[in-house]
């Protein structure tokens, strides 16, 4: 019993120290009146660059907006996605041309009713960053949009569509490139669609 008690007390103390250590351990040293100048020579590091993706917090909510008698329309916005490429030339030699693809699943409701992924489209746009080496994907329509243009028949529905892409790895300037993009989402359904709470998942994939 005593052993248990001792063991428990010791462990508790240790745990407390670990958790509170960062706060407690920073004890203010008694300061001197004179300031001590400190010179530090910081040489610039050349760490290996990396391909990084940053996703801003936020929800992708679709609210009804712009419905007509024949088409019910819901709009929303994708959270902002930033891709930063700071890799050096030799790192880029073996790969390099990255891209972000977006793909939506079907919208399903609790009762089993579904709305296909061809009913959702998007319109990507560049929020900030360099648009010479990085390109933003084209607009994607829905299956309820009028059929215009040569690609219109095949460009329907959010399935494996580009949001952001690096064109030429050799065109990345020194210091890397960082681009932020978002997309305006549009869901169009027939007025006969069954009411309910539908949910879907849009998958954004960064690959090379």
């Amino acid at each position, binding site marked *: 019993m005593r052993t248990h008690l001792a063991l428990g007390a010791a462990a508790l103390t240790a745990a407390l120290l670990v958790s509170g250590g960062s706060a407690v351990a920073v004890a203010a040293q008694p300061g001197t009146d004179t300031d001590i100048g400190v010179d530090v020579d910081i040489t610039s590091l050349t760490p290996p660059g990396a391909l*990084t993706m940053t*996703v801003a917090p936020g929800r992708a909510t*679709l609210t009804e907006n712009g419905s007509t008698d024949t088409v019910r329309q819901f709009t929303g916005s994708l959270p902002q996605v930033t891709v930063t490429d700071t890799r050096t030339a030799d790192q880029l030699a073996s790969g390099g041309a990255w891209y972000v693809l977006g793909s939506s699943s079907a919208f399903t409701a609790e009762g089993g009713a579904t709305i296909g992924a061809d009913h959702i489209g998007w319109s990507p746009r560049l929020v900030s960053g360099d648009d010479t080496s990085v390109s933003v994907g084209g607009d994607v329509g829905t299956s309820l949009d009028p059929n215009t243009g040569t690609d219109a028949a095949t460009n329907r529905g959010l399935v494996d569509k580009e949001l952001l892409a690096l064109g030429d790895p050799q065109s990345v300037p020194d210091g890397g490139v960082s681009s932020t993009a978002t997309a305006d989402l549009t869901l169009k359904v027939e007025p006969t669609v069954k009411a309910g709470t539908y*949910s879907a998942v849009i998958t954004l994939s*960064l*690959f090379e």
Partner: protein
Amino acid sequence: MRALLGRLLLAAMVAMSTVLIAAPPAQAAGSVSWSVEPVTATGDTTGHAWAELTMDPGTRQQQYLRVTNRGAEAVVFSLSAADGYFTDAGRFTMLPAGRTSVDAGTWITLPASVSVDPGASAVVPFTVEVPANATPGDHLAGVAAGIFSEQDTVGVESRIGFRVLTRVTGDVAPAVSTTATADYHPSWNPFLPGRLEVRLSTRNAGNTRLTAQNDVAVAGPLGLAPRTSRPDALPELAPGDERQATATVDDVWPLFAMTAVVTTTAADAGGSSDGVTATTRVTVPAMPWSQLLVGGCAVALVVLALWDRRRRRRRWAGMVQEAREQGRRDAAAGVWTLAIAVLVALGTLTMTPSSARASEPVGVTVEISPQPEPMVTQTGLGAGHALAQTGASFSPLLTLSGLGVIAVGVMVWTISRRREVQRASSPRDHQSSRSSTRA
């Protein structure tokens, strides 16, 4: 009592330590920033953007990925592996979480999630195990680390991944096949060539990943007027993929039937096997309508011109004939005129004395008184002594000479007219005879 207290303390401590050690799940309080790459067992970069493995069926290999948290908060990343494929645009991606993998995605085993502190990175091992009954060739899969943002109507799963390309040893045979259809678009200007549009569909018929390039050569019958076109190289094809492309060949003259020969040169994207070639041909009718139309009009013009010339010659000959006839008629008329003139002259002359007789006799009363016998005077044609006499005396010499003069005049006139007609009817003969006499 002490035992209970001790146990309670122990339990509390364990609970707290769990809370302390395990990082909280990623709340969307701030941005999440991370990167993922393949690494070696020691955590160094492999130097490649993805993992390419060559394995025998029934074997397994250990691979590693590194997740680096570049944000300000600790994050739990969810790890996934799935079948990989190329999109229509040639981009590699892997199946989303909602879809079930059936091929190489099922060969990869890795933990479900990993927690990474801010600024730190975690090296995660994963296993690739090839089943014993796996078909030889390339199998595509991918691994990724990602986060799932708060779900409302639409959840957003963001992930970063890389390819895991496994080549299973065995009968690795690249193969490619292409089908083509073509349309000819003529130019309506007969002096400009048209263009041939060839629609290609290239399929990876082997079991390796391929890079492919199409070449189109167009020629008319007997290989006349050859033209070539090289469309853009196709993006990488996985086994079984099919890609469409359109090649436009310009400056193609319509030569009734154009043949397009499409040669597809494909190379193993994995680099180890030899390349393959496939050929297909398609024949397109190309009628030169505008050229035929222009040619036909030109021929018609020539024919019409010749026909018109012949018609004019005939008309000219007819006119000449008519002129000759006219001349003969005039000559005949001239003869009649001569005869009539002669008759008229005779008639005039013979009628004159009779006209004197025909006049009314003039009654003359003569009183004859005796006179001494004067000198005998000569009666008849005495110069100056002839008295004017009514009625004309019939002088045969005068009449004959007058008649002769008239006859000669008429004859001369007739002959001259006849000569004119002759000259008109055969001018060339006359001219040629003239020229021949001149020559």
